[in-house]
């Protein structure tokens, strides 16, 4: 195996200091990592901004949502991200990542991510911060993202 010096790219490493994804999601990852704080619950996620389009589980977990439902939920998440309290912004950011996962799985399309790298980072963070059954959806989306980029 090559040593760090041999394969080393200072620029790439320095770029690692700039978080790849939404800082709010990174904050949630840190909280999940340290297990020392509250994360949005399943109930909060399902009753949050995603629910403006209807039954969250049926629409986005089971895949019954139309394009209009995705748009409606996205708008609600973004509004809460912009104007909510700290806790609401966290819930909305996580909801947006879950919505992204649903869109990748059921529509093979990104909602907020511009690249597969960005989507991969967003989904991984969401996977760290969300709970079952949504974690399974996010994990499926991560695998699907790899296939999309391949």
């Amino acid at each position, binding site marked *: 195996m090559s040593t760090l010096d041999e394969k*080393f*790219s200072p620029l790439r490493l*320095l770029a690692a200091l700039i978080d790849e994804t939404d800082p709010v999601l990174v904050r949630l990852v840190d909280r999940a990592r340290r297990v020392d704080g509250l994360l949005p619950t399943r109930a909060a996620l399902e009753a949050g901004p995603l629910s403006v389009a209807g039954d969250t589980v049926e629409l986005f977990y089971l895949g019954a949502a139309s394009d209009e439902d995705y748009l409606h939920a996205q708008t609600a998440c973004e509004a809460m991200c912009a104007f909510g309290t700290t806790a609401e912004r966290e819930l909305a950011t996580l909801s947006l990542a879950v919505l992204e996962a649903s869109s990748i799985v059921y529509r093979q399309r990104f909602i907020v991510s511009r690249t597969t790298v960005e989507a991969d980072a967003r989904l991984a963070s969401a996977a760290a911060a*969300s709970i079952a059954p949504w*974690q399974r959806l996010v994990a499926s989306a*991560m695998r699907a993202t790899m296939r999309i980029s391949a």
Partner: protein
Amino acid sequence: MSTTPEHNSNSSQRATASAAASASAQVFGETVSVATPRVTTKRDSFPLTQRGWLVAQLAQGTDGLARINNYVMETYSEPLSNYVAGSSFRSMGSAKDLVSGFFASRLSQLGYFERWIESELPLRRWLINGFLFHLQEETRRIRTERVDALPTISSAEPATSEHDAVEQFDRLWAASMVRSAAGNARERCATEGFAMHWDMFERHFIGGLSYSGLSQEFTVTGGQAASMVRTASIRFRQAVVDLLLRDGATEDELDEEVTRLMRALRP
């Protein structure tokens, strides 16, 4: 010739007391703990609180000065040597000897680091300025001794412009600093039982492997991959912060400093 900070003849100021106090600062968008020396001085305007670890060492007298000298030689020898090796000064002798000569002549000077503090320059900038001045002194000395084997150095002008030298040295220093920070972070991860986390961090940020790819290669979930990379990434961030603070950056300047170093490293 441009004036170097070494030409300043201000009397040296001595930190009279310091005690390292723990503090937290917003660095790269997140809160990290940093050692912030609490220092009192003879002069209110003396920007000691901005000079971190080195100032705290200065206040500890001879022992502290020895630690500073060791740190400076350990940290700046490589980029200074690489700078000489890539410049027209290389014909003057071996890079190692020239750097050693520079350290010998400057680090023994009374008040050398106090003058750096007064200059308000990053330490690397202070050192490269001093090093250029030292090289020019050496050029003159050799010429005076009628050694005529200096084909590449003109007597009419310095061998390189200060601006170019500073840019080139920034690039070399940044590479050396990041390498050193990565080594420190890797070591810390290994010590704390996070060797695998560091491997994943490297595979992701250097190798470009996605989190999804990491989860397959290391047999973890995507969420675990994100958490483990983050664990290593925080240690790397802290290692970079430590080195930038030692170079004289303030907490407020860290983001800007990283951006500047990234610019310097771009091909």
